[in-house]
C-alpha cells in the first residue's frame, strides 16, 4: 500500500469499543470506516456528531473529529457545524429513540432544510442503553419493560417520515450486510443534501432477532429486495419474483406465471423527484411485500448550507457595507461639534 492511500484502519482510534459483543453497531462502525477510506476522505475533514444512546457512542471510536452531544439534538448540532464550516464532511449518528422520539423535531427539520449531512439511523426498535423499553419503531403490541402488556401505539416507519419531511435521499440496509452497507454509505456521502440511511440493527441483549424474520440468510432473498437505480425490481432466491404496479398499488408477481415477463417488472428510479412510488417502496413490509433495501430515493435539490453561502456572497457583492464601521455610520446619524 502506498503512503497516500488511506485505509479503514486509519479511521480507528486506540479506544476500546464498548458495545456488547455481537451488537450490530460493530459492523456499522466498520462499514463507515471502510466507506470513508474508499471515498478517500481525510481524517481532519470528517466530523461525526451523535446524540445519546448506544449508537451515539460512535464518535468516541473514530479517529476523526467527533461530538457526542445530548439526547435528540444531534441533527441541530450537526447543522450548525456544517453551516459554520461547509467544507467538512459531517456524519450524524442516531438511533430510533434519539432521532424519532426525543429528537423528532430536529430530525424532520434538518431533512426539510436539506442540509448536507449523512445521517445514519440505527434502528433496533428498542431502547437499549436504558435497558429495554419500547421505542417509536417498536411494532404495535410489542412487549417490553415499559409495555408489559404490549404497546397500544403505532410505530413510525423511518423512511416514510424522511420522505414526508421532503427528504431527497433515503436508503436502507442490514447491519450484518457489510458489503452492501459500504456501498449505501458511499452513495449517501456522494449525495448533496441530507441523506438518511436506516440500518436494520440487531440489539443482541434487549431485542435479539428483531429483524431476523427478514434478515436471516435462509429467508433474506425472498423477504427483501435490493433496489438499484435503473434495474428491474426483481428478488427471490430464484430471481423470479418482481414488483409491478396494479392501479395505485404495488404487487408482487412471479415471472413466468400468468404471462408475466421481465419486461413487465418495474424499473427502479431513485432519481425521480416525484416520491410517490419511492414512498410505496419505502413502506413495503413483510409478509405482504419484500422489505426494500438499498438506495430508495436519491433526488437532486437545493442544499441549505450551499445556499447560505451563496446568499451571503451575493449580498456582500452588492452592499456598500463592508465593515462594522460602514454599518454604524450608515443611516440616521448626527454630529455633535
Amino acid at each position, binding site marked *: 500500500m502506498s503512503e497516500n492511500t488511506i485505509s479503514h484502519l486509519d479511521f480507528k482510534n486506540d479506544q476500546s469499543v464498548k458495545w456488547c459483543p455481537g451488537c450490530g453497531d460493530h459492523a456499522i462502525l466498520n462499514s463507515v470506516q471502510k466507506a470513508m477510506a474508499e471515498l478517500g476522505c481525510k481524517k481532519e475533514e470528517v466530523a461525526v456528531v451523535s446524540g445519546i444512546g448506544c449508537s451515539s457512542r460512535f464518535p468516541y471510536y473514530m479517529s476523526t473529529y467527533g461530538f*457526542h452531544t445530548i439526547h435528540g439534538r444531534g441533527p*441541530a448540532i450537526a*447543522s*450548525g457545524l456544517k453551516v*459554520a*464550516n461547509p467544507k467538512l464532511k459531517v456524519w450524524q449518528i442516531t438511533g430510533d429513540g434519539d432521532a424519532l422520539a426525543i429528537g423528532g423535531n430536529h430530525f424532520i427539520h434538518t431533512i426539510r432544510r436539506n442540509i448536507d449531512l449523512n445521517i445514519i439511523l440505527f434502528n433496533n426498535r428498542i431502547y437499549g442503553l436504558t435497558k429495554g423499553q419500547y421505542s417509536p419503531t417498536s411494532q404495535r403490541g410489542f412487549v417490553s419493560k415499559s409495555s408489559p402488556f404490549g404497546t397500544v401505539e403505532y410505530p413510525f416507519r423511518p423512511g416514510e417520515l424522511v420522505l414526508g419531511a421532503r427528504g431527497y435521499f433515503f436508503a436502507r440496509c442490514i447491519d450484518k450486510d457489510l458489503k452492501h452497507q459500504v456501498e449505501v454509505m458511499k452513495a449517501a456521502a456522494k449525495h448533496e443534501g441530507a441523506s438518511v440511511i436506516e440500518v436494520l440493527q440487531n440489539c443482541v441483549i434487549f431485542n435479539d432477532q428483531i429483524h431476523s424474520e427478514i434478515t436471516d440468510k435462509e429467508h433474506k432473498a425472498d423477504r427483501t429486495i435490493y433496489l438499484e437505480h435503473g434495474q428491474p425490481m426483481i428478488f427471490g432466491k430464484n430471481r423470479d419474483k418482481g414488483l409491478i404496479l396494479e392501479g395505485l398499488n404495488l404487487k408482487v408477481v412471479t415471472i413466468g406465471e400468468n404471462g408475466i415477463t421481465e419486461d413487465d417488472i418495474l424499473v427502479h428510479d431513485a432519481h425521480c423527484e416525484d416520491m410517490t412510488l419511492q414512498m410505496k417502496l419505502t413502506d413495503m413490509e413483510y409478509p405482504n411485500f419484500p422489505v426494500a433495501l438499498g438506495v430508495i430515493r436519491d433526488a437532486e435539490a437545493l442544499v441549505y448550507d450551499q445556499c447560505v453561502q451563496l446568499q451571503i456572497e451575493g449580498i*456582500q457583492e452588492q452592499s456598500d457595507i463592508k465593515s*462594522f464601521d460602514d454599518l454604524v455610520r450608515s*443611516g440616521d446619524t448626527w*454630529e455633535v461639534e
Partner: protein
Amino acid sequence: MGKRSKVIEKDEVVVRFSGDSGDGMQLTGNLFSYTSAIFGNDISTFPDYPSEIRAPQGTISGVSGFQVHFGHNDVYTPGDYCDVLVAMNPAALKANAKWMKPGGVIIIDEDCFDKKHLEKAGYQTDDPIKEEKLGDYNVIKAPISTLTKESLKDMGLDTKSILRSKNMYALGLVYWMFDRPLDHTQEYIKKKFAKSELIVQANLKVLDDGYNYGSILQVVTPSFHISPADVKKGTYRNLSGNTAVAWGFLAAAEKSGLELFLGSYPITPATEILQELSRRKDLGVKVFQAEDEIAGICTAIGASFGGDLAITTTSGPGLALKGEAIGLAVMAELPLVVVNVQRGGPSTGLPTKTEQSDLMQALFGRNGESPCVVMAAGSPVNCFDYAFYAAKVAIEHMTPVILLTDGFIANGTQPWRIPDLNDWPEIKVPRVTKDMKDWHPYMRDLDKLSRYWAAPGIPGFEHPLGGLEKDYDSGDVSHNPENHQKMVNVRQEKVDRVANYIPELEILGDADSDVLVVGWGGTYGHLFTALDELRQEGHKLALAHFNYISPLPKNTYDILKSYKKIVVCELNMGQFANYLRMKFQDLRYLQFNKVQGLPFTVLELKEYFKSLMEE
C-alpha cells in the same frame, strides 16, 4: 411667527405619545426623538405596546405608547411621569392618566372623545377629565381628526387615508410646543412615502398645519424651551438595546477575526436581535432560524465546535429550554454567548413587559455543577459594550456566557456615540498551535484554565468532544470518582478566574455614605437618577451597580462590608440579594423589590432611600 406667550424653561421634559395601536404612535414618537437628539438634547426613549398585534380598537388593551425623555443634562431613563401626554383617544387617556406629572399638559383629539369611545375606554360619564381628576392640568382639546380632514379636503384622498395622517398633525403641534425644526421629519416623509407623491404632500401639509395650529392656539398652549445638552463631541445615532446587542457581536466578530453565527428562535422581546443579524449578511453573518429554542442553541454549539463566534438569543421561557444544551457547552468547554432578554414570568407571563427574574435561572438553571459566566447590561447603549465583552470572555476563556438584558433596555433607545473599534481591546482566540506538545482536548492554559480550541479541519488535532465526563489528563471518557471531582473543580475555577480579567466594582456617589444601594443590569438608569437627584438635594448616598454577576468583581466583598446598610434593589423577589447572601454570608442585606412588569420609578426609589437614610 409671533412671540410665544407662555414659554416654560425646563432642564428636561418627558413626552408620551399614546393612541390606538393603529394610530402610528411608535413612528410619531421615534420622529420626535430623532429631531430632539439632532437638536442636541440627550434622550432616552421607551415604546410601550400591547402583546396583541391588533387588540380591539379603542380599548385599553389596544393602547400603544411611546415615551421620550429629553433634556439639557444627561438623561438616564425614559422618565417615570410625563410632562406632556398626547392622547389620541379616551383609552389612551385612561391608560396614562396616572403617569402624568401634576399640572402637566394633555393634548387630546377631541373628535375621538365621543360617547362610543368613552364607553369603550370604560369611562362612566362624558367628562373624562373630571373623572380622572385632571382639573388642574392644562388640557388642550384639539379636534385633530376634523382639522386633519379640513387640511386635506382638497387633495382627493379617501377618508381612511386622510385619518391615517392625523398622527402627523399631532406631531406638528408638539413640534411647535418645543420649537423644534421640521426638516428631519419632512425628509423622512419624503423617503418613506416616495412611492406616492400624493401621500408625501398630504403628510407634509398635515405636519405643517399641525405646527401652525400651535401658533394659533398659543394663547392657551404653553411652549417649552430646553437647551441642547453638553454632550461629548462625535458622531451619534440612536440605538436600542436589542440592536446594540447585535452590533456588539458584529464588533466582536471583526475584532476576533471570527465569523459570526446566530442560532435562534423568535421570541418576544428578543426577536429584534435575530432580525437585525439576519439583515447583516453584508457582514457575513450566518443566521439560522431554528425549529425551536433547543435547536437555536444546539446549532450555535455546533457552530462553536466548528470555530465560529456562536450566539443564541432568547427570553426567559427559551432559556429554560436551552438549559440542557448550556450544560453541554459547559462540559465541552466551548465558547458560546446566550442572550436572555428578560421578560415577566413565570411561564408565558408578561411577554412585552420587563423583569429581572431570570437571574437564578441563568446562574443555576442546569443539571449538575454547571458554572458559566453571567453578565448583565445596564442601559440600551451599553448592551453594545456587554455583548462585546460577553463574546470576548466566551472566546478567551472557552466558556458559555449568559448575557442578561431585559425588555426595558432592549426596546428603549439612547443616543450612542459611534465608537472607533481601534480603541476597543483585542480578542485573542485560543486556537491550538502546531507546536503544542502532548496536546489533548482538555489541555489547559495555566492562567485561565481554559482549554484550547481545535476546530475540525485542522490535521493532527482530531478528537471527540462530548457530554460525558472526561479525564483531566487525556480528555478520554472517564468515570473515575476523583477525576470527576477534579474536573468539577477546574470548571468552577475557570469561571472564577474570569474575575482576574474584568474591571473591579466602582462606587458611584458618596463612597463614605451609610447606605449602599446595590443594583444590577437594566435598573441602572433609575437607580443612578435617584442617586443623582438625592445627592443634589444634599443627601449622601452610594451606588454599586453590577454588570458582572458570575464571577463577581474581585473587590465586591470589600466594598459591601464597608457600609452600614446595604439595600439590594431589583425587579424580582430578591434573587441577587439571595445570591449575595450565599456568597457573603456575614453581611445583612435589605431588599427593595418590584414585580409588576414595570421598571422602578425614580420617585419610589427616592422615597425609599430617604426613609432608609432617616432611620
